[in-house]
């Protein structure tokens, strides 16, 4: 069997294994948001409705259909990528996602890159000087970072930069070019880095410490190889896998969870805020699109991560 065919089979198997996952995610989220979720009908009624108005609207929204029928039609729509229209404005959900997703990416990308990069850097210093003063300092700071609630960070940044100093806009997203982009992205980026750096540093440090206790790293150090050399060729290569996996795994969760808080608090028209508003108003077409698509994205991510593992280290043969 040629390696290429083996790889193809591997990918197919992984994707097939993702199907039950997608089924589970859609079922759970559909049950939660549609069956138990908020009732959008009452927010869409006029000031003085009659019981007949209520019934007519519920029929119009399809709330009178049985659960399984609604779930089946939802699956069908997801499979054919027919996402429908939002309940609030009637805009196409696809247009809505196309409009808000890029905002979220631009909002989160700098914080994600900086947060991961800085954490990796700090972790390298800490691991190199393991047990030393620098290590204790960095570990201590990362515990402090982990203990800070995201909410505290957001309020503090808003108070300092928005109310007190007034240097940056604390809300909204009026981006018309590089300058306004920087102005709007700075505070969310700072918040994101502060919130994630503690966890990341600790994790990376643990991985690096593990990798550095291998014999060949110790040998290399004993022979006086330069720290950059050792880090690059021995340590980082050794723990590339877990680090990559973690980074890749955190992307989909980040896209929703991270943006949910940031965007709903800073009033940024990204996917997180739209999702949160949809949860609050029970806008089901939006919700099922977001959850359904994020399930697919997660399944794909897992496959990609496994694939990366395999490519990086051909010795791994996943059954």
């Amino acid at each position, binding site marked *: 069997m040629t390696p290429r065919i083996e790889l193809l089979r591997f990918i197919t198997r992984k994707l097939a294994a993702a199907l039950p996952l997608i089924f589970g995610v859609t079922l759970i989220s559909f049950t939660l948001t549609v069956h138990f979720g908020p*009732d959008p009908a009452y927010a869409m009624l006029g000031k003085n409705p*009659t019981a007949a108005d209520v019934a007519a609207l519920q029929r*119009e929204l399809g709330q009178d259909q049985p659960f399984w029928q609604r779930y089946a039609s939802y699956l069908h729509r997801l499979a054919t990528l027919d996402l429908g229209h939002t309940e609030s404005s009637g805009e196409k959900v696809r247009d809505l996602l196309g409009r808000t997703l890029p905002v979220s990416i631009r909002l989160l990308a700098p914080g994600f890159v900086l947060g991961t990069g800085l954490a990796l850097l700090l972790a390298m210093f800490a691991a190199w000087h393991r047990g030393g003063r620098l290590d204790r300092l960095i570990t201590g700071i990362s515990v402090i970072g982990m203990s800070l609630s995201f909410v505290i960070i957001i309020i503090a940044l808003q108070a300092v930069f928005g109310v007190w100093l007034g240097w940056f806009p604390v809300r909204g997203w009026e981006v018309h070019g590089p300058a306004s982009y920087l102005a709007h992205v700075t505070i969310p980026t700072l918040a994101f880095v502060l919130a994630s750096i503690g966890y990341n540093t600790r994790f990376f440090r643990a991985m690096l410490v593990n990798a550095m206790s291998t014999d060949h790293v110790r040998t290399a150090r004993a022979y006086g190889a330069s720290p950059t050399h050792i880090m690059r060729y021995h340590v980082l290569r050794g723990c590339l896998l877990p680090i990559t996996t973690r980074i890749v795994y955190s992307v989909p969760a980040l896209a929703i969870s991270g943006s949910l808080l940031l965007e709903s608090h800073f009033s940024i028209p990204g996917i997180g805020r739209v999702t949160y508003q949809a949860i609050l108003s029970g806008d089901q077409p939006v919700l099922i699109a977001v959850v359904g698509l994020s399930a697919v994205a997660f399944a794909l991510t897992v496959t990609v991560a496994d694939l990366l593992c395999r490519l990086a280290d051909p010795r791994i043969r996943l059954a």
Partner: protein
Amino acid sequence: MSFARAACAAIAAMLILAACDQPGSDGRDRVVYRHAIDGMPASLDPAHAANVYSSTLVVNLYDTLFRYRYLSRPYELAPNLASGMPEVSEDGLTWTIRLRENVRFADDPAFPDNRGREVTASDVVYSLGRHFDPATRSQGAWLWRGKITGLEEWIDGGADPDRRIPGLHAADDMTVVIELTEPYPQLAHTLAMALSAIVPREAVEHYGREFGVRPVGSGPFLLKQFDETRAVLKRNLDFDRGALDLAAEGHDPQRHAELGLGSLDGEAYPFIDRLEIHFIAEPTTRWNSFVAGEVDNVMVPPEQADRVLDSHDPLRFSPEIEQRYHTLAEPEAGFVLYGFNMANEDIGHHPDEQIDSANRALRCAMRQAFDWQERNDTFYQGLGQVFPGVIPPFLDAFDPALDAGSTARDPQQARSLLQAHEWTPETLPQLTYGLEASVHQRQMFEQFRARMSAVGIPQDRLRSRSFASFGDFSRAIANRELDLFLMGWTMAWPDAQYALQLFYGPNAAPGANSFNYDNPEFDRLFERAAALEEGEERTALYRQLNEMVIDDCVHIGSLSRTRLHLWHRHVRMLPDREMLGGYFLRFVDIGAAP
């Protein structure tokens, strides 16, 4: 690995990310006005325009038959798409409305050859009729249901726009005739609401569900861009309503001298080429944007009130503010109030007369225990107007001589009321206080509960139930699950009837009578008043109805918030957004910036 190189790469990546966003550069517009409002419209379909945010956009994108005069107070109707005021028959049952000629819908792919056509009487008929098609999901159907001859049969027959509604039809291309089942003087007001704006059937059918984000109207502006943060509108060059007649709009050279509107008299409007409406819900940001000059107006958030005021009573802006900006302080056309669920026999109506009166005593005691002044001070900077009943001071029917005792805190009287009717902590009912889950709502609950426990109603007798969405809160009220709740009521027309309908029996939940107040005498008088034209008899009836509500202790209230508006000196306008409107935007002009 060079960190400098990595940093360069990172900066480059950020620039690329930033560059993805292209500003909508469709040429420079000469005169731009940037208006900030404190919320975002969900949909721009007139049939959904039930709040001030969608109304602000809808009345500028579409035409309504009537509108309110720019500066006249009390509010006065004027023809808009109609060529004159309606002709009403002697019995008040037949209304004839003639339309202005040569008004065109904007060019749009929905029309043949992309060319907008003339607005006709059948468009008016279609626009009102579509409210009764369930697929429209109308929020305005209640305004006309049961009022128009033959409407119910037409709805039962499928609300088919191709079939004739007996009481709503086009007599000719430019004349609409409405036949009513009973006199309905408020009809003219409903035809000034954004809900009644005139839409072309072609666009509704062409865009389907997307019609809510693709408006096609005949109003003074056209939509260029619309997202969660702002809407950009451009002047509709086909819009022609002749010259602005300031005197007819209620301009008083003395009273309005400060506004600098004089030079606009006799000019064709709208005066601005581009109108940006920014949706900024967050108070601090709204304020900062205004101070930084990013928007031209601001509704001052309560937290900032002390920065701009010299004195609260009488209300006076500080000299620096007066010098730098135009200022306006006006009460909202609406109010907030607490209401009881009268359908709950533990606290509301009861067939047993003795229990009924004990329940009334309990409600009255709770009303005397509550402190509106404290509420006003903690949440509205003491700027709100507290008044008894539900007829707010800006209305003609408001009675300045009405006893304000029902809004004053009187713990002594509350205790003695409870005592007289043998209410003890053991016999008091368990009450559910419903609230929307927000910080202020929760704090208002705690304040309410603390005031109740001060007169001997223990904390555990009041249980809060919070709802994360307005829809769920409304559902609980509609299903009569809440015993006590705070609600806001925004007036859509300047007539006490709009407020008193909150207590009209047939409107009981899920209708506007969320309190399920059921008093046949009230209903009888309300029906009589509703059919009357404006006048002394009607005012007297309104006042009587108001007093019945106060006597029965159905509600605790009320309070009208005061809105503080500031706008930059070079902007010539009066930004009055009450009566769910944004009609003033067509009259805004921008002078030379300082």
